[in-house]
């Protein structure tokens, strides 16, 4: 089966600009996660969707970050405006509800 797809793989922007990341989960997986992984740290959950509803967004900086999963399939994570400290790898993962999460390759964001 195809894995979790993410695009773009790399993105370089200047601070105060906007950026969007896209994720297509494994077919049939109802749960979708977005993680932020800062260099030298473990992934931190930003938001969790169950179908097209938000389960947990307690760690999402809502003043600048937003995410949507309108049709319960693919998802977009947006940052507007970006700050230097947003430089990180943004990982998308999906799950069928059997606890194992399958991760995409990530998008490496550099904010200058």
């Amino acid at each position, binding site marked *: 089966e195809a894995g979790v797809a993410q695009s773009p793989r790399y993105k370089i922007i200047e601070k105060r600009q906007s950026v969007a990341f896209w994720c297509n989960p494994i077919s049939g997986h109802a749960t979708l*996660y977005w993680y932020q992984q800062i260099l030298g740290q473990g*992934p931190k959950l930003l938001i969790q969707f169950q179908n097209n509803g938000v*389960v947990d967004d307690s760690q999402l900086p809502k003043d600048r970050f937003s995410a949507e999963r309108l049709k319960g399939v693919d998802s977009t994570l947006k940052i507007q405006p970006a700050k230097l400290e947003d430089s990180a790898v943004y990982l998308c993962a999906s799950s069928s509800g059997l*606890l194992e*999460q*399958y991760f*995409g*390759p990530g998008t490496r964001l550099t904010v200058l």
Partner: protein
Amino acid sequence: AQSVTQLDSQVPVFEEAPVELRCNYSSSVSVYLFWYVQYPNQGLQLLLKYLSGSTLVKGINGFEAEFNKSQTSFHLRKPSVHISDTAEYFCAVSDQGNDMRFGAGTRLTVKP
């Protein structure tokens, strides 16, 4: 909320030697425990997981981990490592499938 501490940020080891990567967790409820591996420029891949039952869990690539409730530990072991095991390893804890928290990671470097 649960948390994870990976006691070693870096572990260098020679090829064919045994290795142990240490992980301690804290939680007030029953938890599920995971080990993930991350190769350069890739997403995370599940090595093994503990949900219930036998405290010794076997995973892929010859890795195993032992759940020790009294010591709140979930150390990862491999009796003989290969060059290809060089990667970043993350321990994670989940509150019965929700709110996955990752440790900061341990970089395993296998030297010839």
